């Protein structure tokens, strides 16, 4: 439970902000909640609402939102070695609850405690995901209904960047992690002008490949030394 605390610090303001923004973009309460409950993926919800208020055509809104979420295919693949024995029904539920924060928390936990049984792993995933999912819906609702009372100038927009950066920094523990992160940042900035989500995919894949490459090279170096 305690482990979800830093994530709640971002989930709650992020969802509040989404509630406020989608009201300003002209959604009604049901549509706002529809986004948070049916899509349940913050970055793509913001992308979609932003594009809708920019008068973008529906197809582009959908494709951009999905592109932002393509990273979750990588999350899905990363969890397979840990959760492969789960029933089909549980996998559906896992898929629905698979967000940045529940993925990051669970993977960290599994790597730290590799001897957990499958039921223990599932309990950890569902426990942390539920603790993140309920506040997400509640805070969206609060933002949509109380939104006008929240002042515009408290820089809520920066809640997500700060929390993500705080999550990433402690992970930069090897040269390979640093290289992956550096390449991803540079390419994300270089390709920022590409249609929404595309630059992110290119930068992320290149960063991941860089990390894997550096790891391989360093392992070879060690092997020849020893």
């Amino acid at each position, binding site marked *: 439970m305690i482990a979800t605390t830093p994530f709640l610090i971002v989930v709650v303001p992020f969802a509040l902000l989404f509630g406020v923004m989608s009201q300003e973009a002209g959604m009604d309460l049901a549509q706002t909640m529809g986004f948070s409950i049916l899509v349940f993926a913050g*970055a793509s919800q913001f992308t979609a609402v932003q594009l809708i208020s920019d008068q973008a055509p529906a197809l582009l809104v959908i494709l951009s939102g999905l592109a932002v979420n393509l990273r979750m295919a990588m999350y899905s693949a990363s969890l397979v070695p840990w959760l492969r024995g789960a029933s089909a029904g549980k996998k559906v539920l896992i898929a629905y609850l698979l967000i940045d924060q529940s993925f990051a928390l669970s993977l960290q936990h599994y790597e730290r405690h590799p001897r957990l049984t499958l039921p223990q792993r599932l309990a950890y995933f569902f426990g942390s995901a539920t603790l993140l999912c309920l506040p997400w819906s509640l805070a969206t609702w609060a933002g949509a209904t109380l939104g006008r009372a929240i002042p515009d100038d408290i820089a809520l927009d920066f809640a997500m960047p700060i929390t993500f950066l705080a999550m990433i920094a402690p992970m930069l523990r090897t040269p390979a992690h640093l290289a992956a*992160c550096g390449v991803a940042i540079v390419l994300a900035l270089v390709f920022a002008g590409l249609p929404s989500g595309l630059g992110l995919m290119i930068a992320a894949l290149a960063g991941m490949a860089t990390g894997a490459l550096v790891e391989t090279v360093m392992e070879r170096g060690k092997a020849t030394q020893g």
Partner: protein
Amino acid sequence: MSPVTSDLSIWIVILALGIGTFLIRWSFLATLGDRDLPPIVIRMLRYTAVAVLPALVAPLVMWPAATGGQPEPARLSAAAVTIAVGVLTKNVILSIVAGATVLFAMLYVLG
């Protein structure tokens, strides 16, 4: 193609995004079964978080929508402090607090 204005078209966007996002999340969990991924893929997946999250955040730090896409000292400093405290202390909450403090202090000072 016309912009998304009617209630119906907004609901179509919500449903399409919801179903599509679910399928993305479900993809490998559902299909991989007992097979293992190739070692090179597993090796790449180790770097998912440190590649995707910074790539998602970097443009938001450099060109925040709140300032109309102009680089802005308060947000840049807050990001730098968050990373520095995170790398030095490995403490997620402490670095969020440090970053938020710098952000609000700078926004207040810069008016």
